């Protein structure tokens, strides 16, 4: 007993005097160092003093003391949990004291570590504070072991251990990565192959049937493609081994075959993938190892004799059907009658979405004006529409807008200029390496040229439409993957087929089944003489054949002159059986009108649509009704679906998230051109007549143009800031988000602020009465009179007799108003 007390006394003294003092001293040092080092990194000085870095790096070592000791203390306590007397008392006390001291040291070193190295992220503060909290808890617990009741001791010790666990978990997440643990769970396997194999390993007995062979093989190829072929594929052949085809796999590498069919034990490949990750022969040698499931699958496959299906292999990527499909239209129910709505209704039922009420007239007319002709409606027009009592006034409105051919052309010109990368100025023109197609494009849109003819004229062009496939040629020698024939192949496939050939024009694609040879073969259609295949800009000595991307569509005569090859290609591409061409188009138009495509991104048509039926029906109907884009627009704009309230999205990335559920049109920002035209119409023309590129437009265009629209002027810093792309490359969607450069341009840029300044002069003259002016400006910009508190804010600034400056500022604020800037 005496002895026990002596130990107790000794430890107590040790704890209370020297050690606590020491701990606080250390903490104090840390607190002082903290800002000093922080400042260093912030201002100028170079690397921190090496001693701090060194001690900081000891943190991961030191933390294991408190983790181990405190947990052991707790385990000991568990053993005597129910007992009154604590036989382990002195031992626990020693453990606690050392554990606490080491936790203080760990915290100090940890603080040093984050100050000397660039740690960051969301986990760090959690780890830091749970760590510190645990240290404090440990100290208190230790104290209770010398003073307080056992219940308190047990409770606090348990809390401390919980703290250690939490802090330790976050610390490990920082060191090893957040997914260190979860990544090995079966649910977290990376989703590389969009085309998920359905073959299930379990429950499989007896020989495999053909479908099972196909599925198993698909799994194997998916694993190889994700984890192996970067080094053992087309680009690199480490150890002379390729794992991207049956022949290559069976052939093996420089040391002979890598697998013995039917005998996993003797297969080198199996041995290597099963080695511990730190073994120098372990495969894959870089990155993560294969998962146990993947290894089991490969083993099973080898055991089964490494079967390879005969005939066509199923793709490991999702590949959309080429041929058109006309799904059956669901039966009409209630007031849901149009095919678009019926397909959406089906979709809503499946996803438990309720139909919302249609938007009001004011919202609807603003939407369709902006979507059909790119302009905001005048206030009187809005009022008249609201007062119109005809039941089909919305349909009539859309028809009327669609028949305003010039306005329609001037709006849609922007979209097609982006997509066909046609611009009035840009690279290439200076050395005669580029042709514009403005005149042709403008007339085609004004005439609502059927889409099949539109495509044909771009691919098998006249002098006026040759600019699209001619590409952009810079002076000098250019990368083989950017020769104009290859540009044509890439642009035609992207714009018309929603297909990315850019990877394959340099090497076999890693993200689709398109091969280098496919890209060259397609490029050859545009070439006067056969092209030599270059891999990653290095000649291979192999000449490419000539063929379409989809051989089902037809065969190109490789001996024909280019002109004839292009004619053939154009004919083949626009055939009704090329469902992809029309799906791509209807999806683009849908995305323009609804803020998001049925398939996203709109250039990746192999992705899964949110409604296959809707997409297929729209495409088939489009062909059946004469390839008429306006009819397509009409069908969408008059649907109940389009008339649903707009949907706001918190984070832009949610739009393309895999679990996206369609519930209505997404709110959009006006494009650079829509915004500029809205300002031009509502308050004052932004551009003068002289800015219009008359020379590039049809001769009779003068009568078409009611005011200088932004789609008809050359790009400038103002339009660039607002998001007009430089049309060097195909661009099929615009950013819908504001940024600083944009805001600066609008806040003090000349182009915009001068227009507002001119407007102020005009408005002040026209409306000497401030109240009347506020009402009219509200009507002109937002299409509605001001609410009373809006009016009083405005009048407070304007005063009874507004100055020009005050009017200018008011106009400025109104045009930057979110209600003015959004399509909602």
């Amino acid at each position, binding site marked *: 007993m005496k002895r026990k007390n002596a130990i107790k006394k000794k430890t107590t003294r040790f704890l209370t005097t020297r050690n606590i003092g020491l701990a606080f001293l250390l903490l104090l040092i840390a607190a002082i160092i903290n800002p000093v080092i922080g400042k260093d990194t912030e201002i100028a000085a170079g690397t921190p003093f090496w001693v701090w870095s060194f001690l900081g790096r000891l943190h991961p070592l030191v933390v294991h003391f408190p983790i181990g000791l405190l947990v052991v203390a707790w385990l000991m306590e568990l053993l005597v949990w129910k007992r009154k007397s604590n036989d382990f008392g002195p031992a626990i006390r020693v453990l606690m004291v050392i554990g606490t001291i080491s936790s203080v040291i760990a915290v100090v070193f940890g603080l040093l570590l984050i100050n000397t190295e660039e740690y960051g992220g969301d986990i760090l503060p959690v780890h830091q504070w749970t760590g510190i909290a645990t240290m404090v808890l440990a100290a208190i617990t230790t104290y209770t072991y010398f003073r307080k009741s056992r219940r308190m001791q047990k409770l606090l010790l348990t809390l401390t251990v919980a703290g250690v666990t939490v802090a330790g978990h976050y610390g490990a997440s920082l060191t090893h990565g957040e997914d260190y643990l979860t990544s090995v769970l079966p649910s977290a396997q990376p989703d590389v192959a969009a085309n998920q194999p359905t073959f299930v390993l379990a429950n499989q007995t007896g020989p495999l049937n053909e479908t099972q062979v196909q599925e198993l093989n698909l799994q194997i190829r998916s694993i190889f493609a994700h984890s192996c072929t970067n080094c053992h594929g087309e680009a690199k052949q480490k150890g002379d081994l390729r794992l991207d085809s049956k022949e290559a796999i069976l052939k093996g590498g420089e040391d002979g075959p890598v697998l013995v069919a039917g005998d996993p034990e003797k297969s080198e490949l199996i041995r290597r993938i099963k080695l511990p990750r730190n073994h120098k022969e372990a495969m894959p040698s870089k990155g993560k190892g294969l998962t146990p499931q993947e290894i089991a699958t490969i083993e099973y496959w080898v055991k089964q004799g490494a079967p390879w299906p005969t005939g066509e292999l199923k793709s490991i990527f999702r590949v959309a059907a080429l041929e058109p499909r006309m799904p059956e239209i669901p039966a009409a129910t209630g007031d849901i009658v149009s095919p678009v709505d019926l397909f959406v209704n089906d979709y809503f039922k499946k996803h438990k979405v309720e139909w919302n009420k249609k938007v009001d007239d004011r919202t609807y007319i603003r939407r369709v004006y902006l979507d059909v002709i790119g302009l905001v409606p005048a206030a009187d027009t809005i009022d008249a529409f609201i007062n119109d009592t005809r039941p089909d006034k919305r349909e009539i409105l859309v028809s009327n807008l669609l028949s305003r051919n010039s306005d329609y052309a001037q709006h849609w010109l922007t979209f097609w200029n982006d997509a066909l990368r046609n611009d009035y100025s840009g690279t290439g023109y200076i050395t005669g390496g580029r042709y514009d197609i403005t005149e042709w494009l403008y007339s085609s849109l004004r005439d609502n040229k059927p889409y099949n003819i539109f495509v044909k004229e771009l691919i098998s062009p006249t002098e006026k439409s040759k600019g699209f496939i001619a590409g952009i040629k810079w002076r000098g020698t250019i990368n083989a993957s950017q020769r104009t024939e290859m540009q044509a192949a890439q642009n035609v496939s992207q714009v018309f087929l929603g297909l990315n050939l850019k990877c394959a024009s340099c090497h076999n694609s890693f993200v689709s089944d398109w091969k280098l040879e496919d890209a060259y073969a397609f490029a050859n259609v545009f070439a006067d003489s056969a092209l030599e295949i270059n891999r990653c800009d290095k000649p291979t000595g192999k000449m490419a054949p000539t063929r379409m991307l989809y051989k089902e569509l037809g065969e190109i005569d490789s001996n024909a002159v280019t002109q004839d090859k292009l004619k053939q290609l154009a004919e083949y591409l626009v055939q009704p059986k090329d469902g992809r061409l029309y799906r791509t188009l209807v999806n683009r138009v849908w995305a323009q009108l609804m803020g998001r495509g049925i398939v996203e991104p709109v250039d990746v048509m192999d992705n899964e649509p949110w409604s296959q039926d809707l997409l297929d029906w729209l495409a088939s109907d489009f062909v059946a009704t004469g390839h008429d884009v306006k009819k397509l627009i009409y069908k969408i704009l008059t649907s109940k679906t389009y008339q649903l309230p707009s949907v706001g999205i918190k984070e*832009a990335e949610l739009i393309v998230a895999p679990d996206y559920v369609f519930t209505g049109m997404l709110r959009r920002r006006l494009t650079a051109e829509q915004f500029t035209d809205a300002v031009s119409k509502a308050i004052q023309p932004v551009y003068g007549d002289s800015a219009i590129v008359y020379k590039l437009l049809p001769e009779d265009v003068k009568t078409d143009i009611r005011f200088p629209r932004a789609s008809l002027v050359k790009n400038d810093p103002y339009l660039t800031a607002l998001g007009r792309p430089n049309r060097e490359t195909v661009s099929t969607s615009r950013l819908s988000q*504001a940024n600083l450069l944009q805001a600066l341009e609008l806040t003090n840029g000349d182009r915009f602020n001068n227009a507002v300044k001119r407007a102020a002069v005009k408005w002040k003259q026209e409306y000497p009465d401030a109240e009347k002016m506020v009402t009219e400006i509200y009507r002109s910009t937002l299409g509605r009179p001001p609410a009373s508190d809006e009016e009083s804010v405005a009048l407070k600034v304007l005063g009874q007799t507004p100055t020009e400056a005050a009017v200018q500022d008011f106009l400025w604020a109104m045009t930057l108003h*979110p209600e003015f800037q959004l399509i909602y």
Partner: protein
Amino acid sequence: MKANWNRRDFIKKSSAATLAALAAGAPVAGLLSGCGKGKKIAANTSADTVILLWLAGGMAHTETFDPKRYTPYENGLEGNRVLSTFKSFPTALDGIQFSDGLQSIGSVMDKGTLIRSYVAADMGHILHSRHQYHWHTCYEPPQTVAAPHIGAWIAKELGPKNQVIPAFIDIGQRMTVGESEELKAFHTAGFLGNEFGPFLIPDPSQGLESVRPPVGMDARRFERRNQLYNDLISKSAIGDLGSDYQKESLKRSMEQAYMLLNSPEAKAFDLSLEPKEVYDVYNTGRFGLGCLLARRLTEQGARFISVTTEYEPFKGFDTHENGHTRMVDMKKMVDGPIAQLVKDLDKSGHLDRTMIIVASEFSRDMMVEGRPDAKVKEQVNQPDILNDMKFYGMHRHFTDGCSILMFGGGIKKGFVYGKTADERPCKTIENPIKIDQIHQTIYHALGIPPDTNYVVEKRPFYTTPDGDGKIAKELLIKV
């Protein structure tokens, strides 16, 4: 640590913006999900700010930082005999000579590194803007996606150093000159999105105009206007539209713009606040004043600044004739300001964390167009025998040996790297260095990992082609 938090904070916010593009299906994408690798800015960076001093138009190395045997002009002189049209003088570095007229720069060479072995790309028949595109983006045009300018990459990865100073500032290049479309093609953030694009200040003496309220608007009115804007929004029914990213981003951007235009830092753009004697040292024209503006902005926390002598076909360093006489003027334009910038930043301590790079798209030679082993179509009428002073100079475009100067931000002091031949062709014969190495060295100093990339249209697009660029460790004090 504070700095890191801010930076990360900012990157998080700004990446939301670029993700919008992803959402819209635009050719912008998130980080490549490399096998479980988190994004980690490397430890031990040596620079926070980069100043690129761009001597546009092709500056002859033999007339500037790598002079060869001097041959004075005389009628009937054989062109092939002429390597340099200036005498040379000894610099602050032992045994290193510069061409006459660069005495000021020569005197600060103990503070930086001289590279004499830059090898430009061979892209056939030469177009300046194409080589400039390559220098600034590391990619040869045309490309299937719009390649970002090095300044845009840095803006994207690190964000602004001071929140109210745009991260990427471009001083001195007007976009209205010949080849302007080609110039615009690389003065862009490309697929990274407008947000990271250049803040253009064509005329540094007008720099303030870009960051203050519109002409004729005093501070009080500017304040009032902003207040009105906020009041009108708060009173409107727009709240019914709920919160979404477009509206939020618009409001946030407007606030940022207001902050910048109203901030004390905006004064950095005002060159008239500079003492006259300092102003005069820099005032050799727009380039010199650009250097002064760069200095002021660096002191206030700029991230990336480019200052150029401006490219305009056949002007400036683009000497197709009268090469010698033109060089006399060009040297006057650049010598004082560059040296002064180095000295000033050194004195104020900023040079430690600021990397200055002096470069040009390629070099020039009197006889060789392109490179010795791959001559390209000639563009200059250069007679073999000189009978007129206007033919005396380096008029052909030479891509096989160029000089680059680098100072500060972790770059070695008083160091010379590489060598060109002493006889024509004066091409690189030791330690050739290419653009991807230059870029990676800059990125490394800033802590941007060499494999930084984004997935665009499903393909990774790296800071340097295929992410293969190697850091030129020899140039750095500490790797």
